[in-house]
């Protein structure tokens, strides 16, 4: 038993999907770093929106439009407060972290010059690598990599050496999706600012587990994805400091993002609408606010403490399996365990776990440079959420042992 303020059995009842069977077994869902499950409180909000007040927002004269606009903008305020951002208009709704990063990368096309440098950490998801490579191709800027050690921790001393007056942008995740490492982002942000560089933090993996105080962190940009924080897919957030968002050009043109349009000239709308061209994902935006309310109902610190217990228990149990190696043993970690068993391909183990009703991720986790660092093709990744239990960890361990005996 874990000592926790959370009533896990009651919480599990909020998630309809957790009661289903997969391949004849009760589902053990351990792929939360890819997508978390959705509680009925959030599903109900989506159903309620489409059942009662589905309408286009921001420009309608009728009541439904006003109700939808209010709900959407309330959600923006919820997210602002959750992140402790200074203004609601610093919260841009996007389709997810990938979209958020691309808005910034596109915006910097008009700022960067040939020879400028972008520093990217060695443990990024492809979505926080490729947009910057594309930006470098467009501008002639140079991408440099902040290295990591075998534990999966960034080398801050190397980072300091890489920083210079040429550094215009630093991009780094708050938490690594493949390893679970919690990066010392406050230090990284402060160092970047000392050199006058802007900094973007990919918070997709941190938002479901850690409290984020944007004003204290002073990040210039921070991104998150709704579907990793018990919200729906297709909705996410780009936080940007007001001054930066005013400086960056819009990403897409269209309705909603304009102030005045003539064939001679268009003036853009104020924040946040400048970056929200077209009809947004209204239901998703409202539901994301509901998801954040749901999480905050428990308190992220209680969630983090419980997940840490799950991580410790699972790490101990899995480590006891002969031939099992865990990748990423940073001193600060979220509840993610990436591992392999010597001589066995991760896909083989993942397939057998699936037959036992246990959902994990296998492969390179969209972070091929990390796999190259460890000289492996991929790993099995179990990622835990606050609705997971010790019994489920035991099921995972039994499953891995079963797979190992079948495949050896």
């Amino acid at each position: 038993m874990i000592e926790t303020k959370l009533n896990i059995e009651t919480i599990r009842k909020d998630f309809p999907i957790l009661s289903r069977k997969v391949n004849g077994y009760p589902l053990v869902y351990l792929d939360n770093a890819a997508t978390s499950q959705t509680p009925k409180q959030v599903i109900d909000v989506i159903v309620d929106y489409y059942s009662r007040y589905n309408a286009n927002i921001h420009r309608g004269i009728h009541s439904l439009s006003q109700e939808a606009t209010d709900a959407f903008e309330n959600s923006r305020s919820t997210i602002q407060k959750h992140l402790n951002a200074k203004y609601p208009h610093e919260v841009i709704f996007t389709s997810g972290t990938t979209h958020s990063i691309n808005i910034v990368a596109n915006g910097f096309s008009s700022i960067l010059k040939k020879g400028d440098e972008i520093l990217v950490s060695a443990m990024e998801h492809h979505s926080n690598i490729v947009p910057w490579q594309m930006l470098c191709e467009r501008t002639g800027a140079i991408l440099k990599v902040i290295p990591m050690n075998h534990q999966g921790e960034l080398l801050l001393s190397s980072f300091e050496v890489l920083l210079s007056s040429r550094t215009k942008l630093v991009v780094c995740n708050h938490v690594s999706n493949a390893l679970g490492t919690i990066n010392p982002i406050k230090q990284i942000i402060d160092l970047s600012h000392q050199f006058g560089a802007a900094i973007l933090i990919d918070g997709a993996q941190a938002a479901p587990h850690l409290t984020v105080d944007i004003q204290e962190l002073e990040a210039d940009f921070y991104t998150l994805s709704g579907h990793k924080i018990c919200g729906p897919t297709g909705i996410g957030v780009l936080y940007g400091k007001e001054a930066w968002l005013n400086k960056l050009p819009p990403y897409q043109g269209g309705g909603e993002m304009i102030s005045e349009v003539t064939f001679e000239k268009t003036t853009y709308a104020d924040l946040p609408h400048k970056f929200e061209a077209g009809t947004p994902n209204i239901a998703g935006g409202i539901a994301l606010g509901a998801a954040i309310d749901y999480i905050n109902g428990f308190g992220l610190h209680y969630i983090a403490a419980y997940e840490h217990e799950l991580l410790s228990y699972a790490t101990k149990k899995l480590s006891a399996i002969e031939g099992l190696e865990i990748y990423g043993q940073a001193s600060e970690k979220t509840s993610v365990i990436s591992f392999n068993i010597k001589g066995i391909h991760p896909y083989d183990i993942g397939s057998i776990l699936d037959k036992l009703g246990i959902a994990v991720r296998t492969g390179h986790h969209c972070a091929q440079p990390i796999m190259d660092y460890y000289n492996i093709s991929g790993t099995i990744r179990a990622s835990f959420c606050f609705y997971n239990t010790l019994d489920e960890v035991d099921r995972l361990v039994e499953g891995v042992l079963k797979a190992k005996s079948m495949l050896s």
Partner: protein
Amino acid sequence: MQIKDIQEEIIEEFSMFEDWMQRYEYMIELGKSLPLIEEQYKTDDNIIKGCQSKVWVHAELEADKLVFTADSDAIITKGIIAILIRVFSHQKPADIIKADTNFIDEIGLKEHLSPTRANGLVSMIKQLKLYAIAYQTQLN
């Protein structure tokens, strides 16, 4: 034996399994028994795209028949390849090209494979048929 007869034989073998565990154990055994491809053929050119694990296939003509050798870094994938090779290797290219592949569904291979593997399976069959088409052109 003709392709169709081999397929019937495999369908019969698989019908004896009671659950997925036995099927997987059988495929793992097949994977372990697969004669390996020669190292020189494990090149990037011979990798089948669309498979999540690495799969190498090499084909060459012996008289008028096509012989496949293959390997993978994942054992269940090797089991699948072993089944495909049993069906398609040592057959005439023309027969491979026109061969029906419904036996895959009948032995429940597809439903018991994760989506990524099922896609890989389609890629594998496509690749074997492409080899057959290439060698058929050579024979003509």
